[in-house]
């Protein structure tokens, strides 16, 4: 701090030079401006002429002042003035940088890395060795030994550091620290209270000075969604409950075409002082069943995402009611128990007609004690099952009395039945009621605990057969089958050999009944799952959450035991979606009972965070000021010595011009060429097709992109009915993307990464049918060029679909011209969204029926804009290839551009065109 101003100098000793200013004043005052020597033959005529005034002898005081100002500004500028300086204390000895790398650090991970980079800079200056350790590495019992390297080595490794997507406890970290050498510690904290933090701090303090860096922004988390009264309840947490904040909760899932998008969004408000906010979303079942995850908008962290699984899904279950013959005996009706079990978690349809039920599109059809069906009904039901339906049948007196499935196997029964059934433990029989045998490990019920009080008094028996054992899922203690199942087409038929009411057994009264239905994926679990309900199941990760809240493929992962899933996310069970057969279970970063509160540091620890934007170097401004004053001084000197005008005016002017040019070059260049996107511009862009390119900040690249799109627009105008407006250079951070159907995005190795908000907008843009052409302009060299690497970083958060090189039957090859390759100035491959793996070529059609949706991106490195670019006079800006082959290549590049715009504007229309011959043929018939 200087004079109370938040200014400091990086090299204060340079300020001593200011003391030399008075000397300079005296010197400059004493020395008149240097004379100009000139040859002049008529000097003889001048000899003896005296100057009339002696005033111009001295430099005028204002010029002196100007020069002193310039020198003072130079000295101050080189002394490195910094506004809002950070207090840095140089340390010595090794430096340990301990980074909290839980999901809570993900949302501002780049800033953290930048802060670590600053620390590395300091350490490099002080020549300290550094070890960087991520918290989740040492939380493990066998925590990795720290690597003491130079700051430069660590700097190279920084991009490889990544947080994890769960909340790792500190665990054995204090013991790990105790085993280290003495070192100062910089703790990059996530700022949340966590068990063991104080122990760990004490351990660090025992080794040396501890410095805590902690971003001030509150952490936000989203708790798992709960289904309550038909609507979904979502709760969000925040670490600092101070002000009123409004966030947006988005429900994301595939739309009917399979493209993932925001299905619903509603605002969530934290009232002042509350650490918890709640929002209720009432959604129609169709929408609700599609939701794969909820997230807090624009929060790139695993904890701000919660995955939806079966518990939120409501299956549609059809109950055949049959004729109501036993009116009034509600508790005896098998339907009653089924309703009780199903209604909380499923959508139940009841009807008397099989046809009506099947047309309602249920996932499960339940037939309680229905002996036989009319043949059309039977056929319809069998067809429905074969397409993947689950038919669940219960036995009962009527089924026992009927002759269905006797002798020959009924198609809608899993086994042949013996007539009559049996009754055990009744008044007329000797045996006691039978209990259930433990479920075999081949059964889907394996792991469910069988209560002792579940007894079976009557059942129908299966005819022994070779496949009876395979089809038995549960049996009684004496080995007679209780539940049997057979596959039918893609679906299955399951028979409970008892009635669905309490008449034949007490199973329907027990919790086991509900669990069995759940295992059969008839019902879904309501709310919390009990650990025993998952006993004995094996779950395999299908998709995993990354720390930044993106859902990605799981890759090869070992299976996880059911109860482990309930233990919460951790290194063993990373958050994600786990599947067991048809069932899906989500492991979320945050549990339903998760808490978030700010970390409590002892009084002597003051967490700080360098807001890098606040620390501004004033040096550029001072140096620029010195330059400007210098230029003024040059002009003034020329004026005084009379050379501003005169014989050498032209040369003088040229010199002054050169000085100005130099000054312009040296001035700090923070300004970015901006084309102002006014409301008028947006309206104009919306009213005509406007091609747009993303401003990269590199003026040469932007110019080429603009010229390229101008050239393409001209070609479109002259060749097609698309008549675009002049192209527009837009800033993804601020401009409205939605009115531009086509974005050209040249990527250079210096292209800036967009902000999270911009990513949100870009995602919305792509999801709403936008299109981006990424061009690395490196001729597609194996994807390892600097621009390609940059592109990877930039495109990663966009969540692009899998890509493949444009296949020969892609609609791009024929949306206007017939093309085989897509050259720009280079002839590399172009990549589009991969075709679905099951795309097949229809009989007699030349092309496969590929992506129904239009590829949202095309990625390549052919420098297309360079090939399209024209100068203002209409001539090509850059050469393409050589000679005639080059002209041909340029033509092909233009054709590609036209195809591309057509592809963007008409989608898969041309894909449909290939069916025209077939359609015409059919119409002819």
């Amino acid at each position: 701090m200087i004079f109370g101003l938040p200014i400091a100098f990086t090299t204060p000793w340079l300020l001593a030079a200011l003391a030399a200013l008075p000397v300079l004043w005296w010197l400059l005052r004493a020395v008149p401006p240097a004379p100009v020597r000139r040859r002049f033959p008529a000097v003889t005529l001048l000899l003896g002429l005296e100057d009339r005034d002696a005033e111009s002898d001295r430099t005028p005081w204002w010029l002196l002042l100007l020069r002193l100002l310039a020198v003072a500004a130079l000295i101050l500028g080189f002394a490195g003035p910094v506004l809002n300086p950070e207090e840095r204390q140089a340390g010595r000895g090794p430096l340990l940088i301990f980074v909290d790398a839980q999901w809570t650090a993900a949302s501002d991970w780049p800033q953290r890395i930048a802060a670590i980079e600053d620390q590395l800079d300091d350490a490099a200056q002080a020549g300290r060795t550094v070890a960087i350790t991520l918290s989740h590495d040492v939380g493990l019992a066998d925590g990795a030994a720290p690597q003491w390297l130079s700051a430069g080595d660590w700097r190279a490794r920084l991009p490889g550091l990544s947080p994890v997507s769960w909340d790792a406890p500190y665990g054995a970290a204090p013991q790990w620290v105790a085993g280290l050498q003495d070192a100062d510690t910089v703790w990059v904290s996530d700022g949340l209270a966590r068990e063991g933090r104080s122990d760990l701090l004490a351990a660090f303090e025992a080794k040396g000075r501890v410095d805590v860096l902690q971003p001030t922004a509150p952490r936000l988390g989203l708790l798992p969604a709960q289904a309550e009264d038909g609507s979904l309840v979502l709760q969000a947490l925040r670490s600092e409950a101070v002000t009123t904040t409004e966030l947006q909760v988005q429900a994301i899932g595939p739309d009917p075409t399979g493209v993932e998008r925001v299905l619903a969004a509603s605002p969530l408000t934290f009232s002042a002082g509350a650490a918890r906010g709640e929002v209720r979303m009432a959604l129609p079942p169709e929408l609700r069943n599609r939701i794969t995850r909820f997230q807090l908008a624009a929060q790139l962290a695993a904890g701000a995402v919660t995955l939806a699984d079966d518990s939120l899904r409501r299956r549609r279950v059809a109950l055949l009611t049959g004729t109501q013959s036993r009116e009034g005996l509600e508790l005896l009706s098998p339907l009653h128990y089924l309703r009780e079990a199903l209604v909380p978690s499923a959508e139940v349809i009841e009807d008397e007609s099989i046809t009506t039920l099947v047309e309602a599109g249920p996932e499960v059809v339940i037939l309680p004690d229905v002996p036989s069906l009319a043949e059309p009904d039977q056929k319809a039901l069998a067809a429905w099952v074969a397409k993947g339906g689950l038919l669940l049948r219960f036995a009962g007196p009527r089924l026992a009395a009927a002759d269905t499935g006797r002798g020959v196997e009924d198609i809608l029964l899993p086994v042949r039945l013996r007539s009559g059934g049996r009754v055990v433990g009744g008044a007329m029989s000797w045996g006691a009621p039978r209990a259930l045998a433990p479920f075999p490990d081949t059964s889907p019920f394996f792991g469910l605990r069988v209560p002792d009080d579940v007894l079976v008094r009557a059942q129908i028996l299966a005819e022994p057969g070779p496949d009876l054992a395979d089809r038995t899922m549960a049996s009684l203690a004496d080995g007679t089958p209780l539940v049997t199942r057979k596959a039918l087409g893609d679906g299955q038929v399951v028979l409970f050999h008892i009635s669905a009411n309490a008449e034949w057994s007490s199973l329907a009264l027990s919790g086991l009944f509900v669990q069995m239905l759940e295992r059969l994926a008839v019902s879904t679990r309501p709310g919390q799952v009990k650990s025993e309900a998952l006993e004995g199941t094996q779950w395999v990760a299908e998709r995993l959450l990354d720390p930044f809240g993106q859902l990605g493929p799981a890759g090869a992962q070992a299976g996880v035991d059911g109860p482990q899933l309930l233990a919460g996310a951790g290194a063993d069970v990373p958050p994600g979606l786990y599947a067991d057969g048809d069932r899906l279970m989500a492991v979320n970063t945050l549990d339903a009972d998760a808490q978030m509160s700010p970390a409590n540091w002892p009084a002597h620890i003051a967490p700080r965070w360098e807001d890098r934007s606040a620390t501004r170097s004033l040096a550029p401004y001072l140096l620029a000021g010195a330059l400007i004053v210098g230029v003024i001084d040059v002009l003034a000197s020329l004026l005084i010595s009379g050379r501003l005008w005169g014989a050498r005016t032209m040369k003088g002017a040229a010199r002054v011009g050169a000085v100005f040019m130099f000054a312009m070059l040296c001035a700090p260049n923070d300004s970015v060429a901006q084309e102002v996107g006014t409301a008028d511009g947006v309206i104009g862009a919306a009213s005509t097709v406007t091609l747009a390119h993303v401003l990269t900040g590199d003026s040469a690249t932007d110019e080429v992109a603009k010229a390229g799109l101008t050239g393409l627009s001209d070609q479109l105008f002259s060749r097609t009915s698309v008549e675009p407006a002049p192209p527009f250079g837009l800033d993804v951070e601020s401009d409205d993307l939605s009115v531009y159907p086509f974005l050209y995005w040249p990527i250079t190795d210096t292209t800036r990464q967009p902000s999270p908000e911009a990513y949100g907008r870009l995602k919305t843009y792509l999801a709403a049918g936008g299109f981006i052409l990424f061009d690395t302009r490196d001729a597609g060299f194996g994807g390892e060029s600097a621009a390609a690497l940059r592109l990877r970083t930039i495109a990663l958060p966009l969540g692009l679909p899998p890509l493949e090189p444009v296949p020969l039957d892609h609609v791009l090859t024929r949306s206007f011209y017939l093309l085989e390759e897509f050259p720009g100035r280079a002839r590399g491959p172009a990549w589009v969204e991969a075709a679905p793996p099951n795309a097949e070529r229809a009989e007699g059609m030349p092309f496969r029926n590929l992506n129904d949706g239009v590829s949202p991106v095309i990625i390549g490195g052919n420098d297309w804009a360079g090939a399209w670019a024209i100068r203002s006079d209409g001539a090509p800006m850059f050469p393409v290839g050589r000679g005639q082959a080059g002209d041909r290549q340029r033509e092909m590049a233009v054709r590609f551009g036209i195809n591309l715009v057509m592809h963007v504007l008409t989608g898969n229309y041309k894909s449909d065109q290939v069916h025209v011959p077939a359609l015409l043929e059919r119409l002819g018939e």
Partner: protein
Amino acid sequence: MTSNPTLRTRAEALAERLPPLLAQARHLAASVELGEHGRRRPGQGDAFWQFRPAQPGDPAHRIDWRRSARSDHHYVQEKEWQAAQSVLFWVDASPSMAFASSSDVPEKGALARLIAMALATLLVRGGERVGLATSASPAGRGELALSRMASALIDPQDTGFVDLPARSRAVFLSDFLGDTASVAQAVTQAADRGVTGVLFQILDPVEEGFPFHGRMIFEDMSGRLEHDTREAHDLRDRYLDRLTARKAELSDLARRTGWQFHTHHSGEADSAALLWLYHAIEGHR
């Protein structure tokens, strides 16, 4: 033949520059001659001598068409010169003549040599004798005299004035910025011997305009003389006064001795200067 390389190099350098000077001078002379063409000057002391058949090399304008028309041959009318005039040139070779204010303007010395040669060419064509006032060899006629004069001009030996032959003509080309006394003495002496002539002053535009500002040090071409000023523009008026005075002095000298005085600025048309000089010499004849 000498083996001295310096001499040889110099001789070659000279030989290189000689033809251009002659050619330029002829070119300049031709432009003036065109202006003279068709002007009738009957009598005037040049009497008819004889006709002789025209020979190859005789210029067409010298053919006497009246005589030739009477026969099948072409005749040239030869005239008898009563008295041939000697015209002697003094071209100032002092360092100050090697000045040119910019690349657009020729050096004063070069201009002086060019004008002198052109005038000599014209005079030789008219049958006069020409020579350099500084050289020991007498004035001569014809091409030989021209080439001798050209080589002497290109490689000047500043030997000062020699005594001019009585009743000859003299042409002094200089900027006359140096000492006027020696000039006055030479002119007076020459006038005493019945020599008339021309003082032809060549000045650079800068010397006439003095467009200088600010602090300057002026030095002469040899670097021996310097003048330091803090504000050159202040000196302009006084300098111009002195220059006018110098011209008036020269003009006065010319008037007293029956000579003529003229100032020419380098950068103006050379032919104008040549025309004036030619008339000035011719008017005396």
